[in-house]
């Protein structure tokens, strides 16, 4: 029966048809990608001009004007989201990949953050609305957290610069003086950070008056944290354990091993993950709808409602004016190109660094 030629032919034809269908499916996927990108470019080029970036919106219904407020708002929101989200994600990833390696705690955090990555972003928006927008008159903890992280990062750079300077200027011979200098540098750094925080926070953060930019930044940070955490964990676990053992054998503490060995070895992957997470949140709309809301005027004050590109696209595209649609398409083109460019670069870096 098996040698029956017509049976063999039937199986061969079946195989060819099935493989043809799979190939068609792949072409369908490419077709959608091409269709969407082509469409965004075709519509977007029309509205793309200098005025889009440097002018504020004209009153509704009147042609002209640009989207400067949305571009600046988007940049500010994403900037503060990065300031908060990346350090938390990085540190948490380092903890579960290094100190807590193989423990139940690490597994739970890892699985939960995998789930968090896919939790509907609009739910994140409602959560942040409840804690950072609804309690009008309360202290804006979101803003304080954001400014706190900002000053911590500034202080960290300051400390690094200071210790670099001291290492250059003095050659320290004895261990005790070395420790003393380290302690002094650490104290100065902490004091510097505190001062920066005390100067910045009353200037930047006000009480909650309703929708505000801080809430938008924090909700984007919420989405960023698990993404950064998972890539950091994955990249650190790719670093061979023997590398760390070699450093341990030389008497290095775990902190030094993490700082000088593990992170050095995984830095390309980690940075790529950070960049990808920025690309991910740059296109988010749903969490901003009721946190940073929208603002028709230009503002850099994060305590006010703040317009972002994505929410502006939503409002303009749903709006009645033809001019709004053109602007929405132009903004869509800018954001799509930005995200696709970043994603492609990150993918290329990953496949170049981690071949096979």
């Amino acid at each position, binding site marked *: 029966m098996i040698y029956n030629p017509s049976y063999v032919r039937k199986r061969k034809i*079946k195989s060819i048809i099935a493989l043809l269908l*799979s190939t068609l499916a*792949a072409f369908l*996927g490419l077709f959608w990608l091409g269709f969407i990108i082509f469409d965004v470019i075709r519509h977007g080029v029309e509205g793309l001009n200098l005025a889009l970036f440097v002018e504020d919106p004209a009153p509704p219904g009147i042609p002209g004007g640009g989207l400067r407020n949305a571009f600046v708002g988007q940049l500010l929101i994403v900037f503060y989201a990065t300031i908060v989200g990346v350090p938390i994600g990085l540190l948490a990833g380092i903890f579960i990949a290094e100190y807590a390696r193989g423990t139940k705690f690490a597994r739970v955090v890892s699985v939960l953050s995998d789930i*968090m990555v*896919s939790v509907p972003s609009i739910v994140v*928006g409602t959560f942040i609305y*409840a*804690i950072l927008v609804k309690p009008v008159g309360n202290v804006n903890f979101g803003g304080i957290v954001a400014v706190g992280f900002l000053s911590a990062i500034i202080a960290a750079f300051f400390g690094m610069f200071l210790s670099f300077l001291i290492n250059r200027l003095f050659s320290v011979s004895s261990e005790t003086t070395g420790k003393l200098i380290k302690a002094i540098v650490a104290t100065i750094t902490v004091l510097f950070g505190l001062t920066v925080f005390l100067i910045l926070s009353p200037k930047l953060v006000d009480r909650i008056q309703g929708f505000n930019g801080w809430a938008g930044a924090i909700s984007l940070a919420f989405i960023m944290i698990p993404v950064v955490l998972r890539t950091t964990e994955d990249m650190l676990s790719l670093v061979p354990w023997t590398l760390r053992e070699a450093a341990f054998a030389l008497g290095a503490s775990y902190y030094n091993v993490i700082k000088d060995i593990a992170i050095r070895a995984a830095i390309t992957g980690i940075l790529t993950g950070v960049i990808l997470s920025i690309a991910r949140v740059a*296109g988010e709309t749903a969490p901003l709808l009721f946190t940073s809301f929208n603002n028709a005027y230009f503002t850099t004050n994060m305590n006010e409602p703040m317009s972002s590109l994505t929410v502006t696209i939503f409002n303009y595209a749903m709006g009645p004016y033809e001019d709004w649609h053109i602007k929405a398409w132009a903004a869509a083109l800018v954001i799509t190109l930005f995200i696709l460019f970043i994603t492609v670069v990150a993918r290329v870096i990953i496949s170049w660094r981690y071949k096979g």
Partner: protein
Amino acid sequence: MKGILKRYPLSDILFALISFSASFTVLSLIVATAYVLYDESSLAIHRFGILNFIFSAEWDPVKEVFGAAASLYGTLVTTVLSLLFAIPVSIGIAIFLTEISPHILKTPIGIAIEMLAAIPSIIYGMWGLFTLAPIMANYIEPALQKTLGNIPVVGLLFQGTPQGIDLFTASIVLSIMITPFITSITRDALNLTPDIMKESAYALGATKWEVVKDIMIPYAKLGIYGGIVLALGRALGETMAVAFVLGNNHQISPSLFEAAATITVTLANEFTEADSDIYLSSLFYLALILFTLSFVILAIAKFFLLKVERGYTR
């Protein structure tokens, strides 16, 4: 305490503490989300109950009577339909990428498919509204009505005037969005099939399709399930892509050519307009339902995928 201080350098202890608190933040964020959503929706939970809220289709902000059935129905229909469209296509793409494609094309086509996941959902929404919806309304939906619309029972699905802003268009946009998720996980799972098994099948005279169908797909079964459930979770919570092409219409109609509402669309459209406490609380209730649903579904997906990791690597 003193022993720890003596044994480890101060920098180590400090860094461990800081990084521990960061990872603890992640845990507490999840717990806080669940708690805050529950707390905010408690008013609606007490007023409408659980089953009553889920099965009531009335959504009337004026009379302050709210029920989730219409939104849940929309969520369910769009999710199921989009999975129906996406599963065959994504598995096809995965088979193409693992078995058919020439080696040089594998990476670029793989990256291109993953690009589909990188495009922001709002772009899908705009594209759906301005480009896909008119095409659907003018060509595809009338054609479907003429052919399938005349069959007795199935025809009910295709009633009404095709406007392009409906469940059907939303499902298509969603299916394009979730394709890359199923594809990449299926591809990775298929790639794990040991060569020796494939070679044995070829040696017995199997055709390529038979190897894929009878060796690789059964071997990658768990991974494929995981990918599908993950995509299900994604489709459930997608907001912007659906918000553009669904219209926000709280009704349950058997026709796929009617505007409808999903949980996410309701939230996106009405959250900032909620003027009474019970209205806002009901919206939080919807968000809580969505959060619970997607959490459970994603946990199931994770369960499958973890099983794959354990089963294949050890």
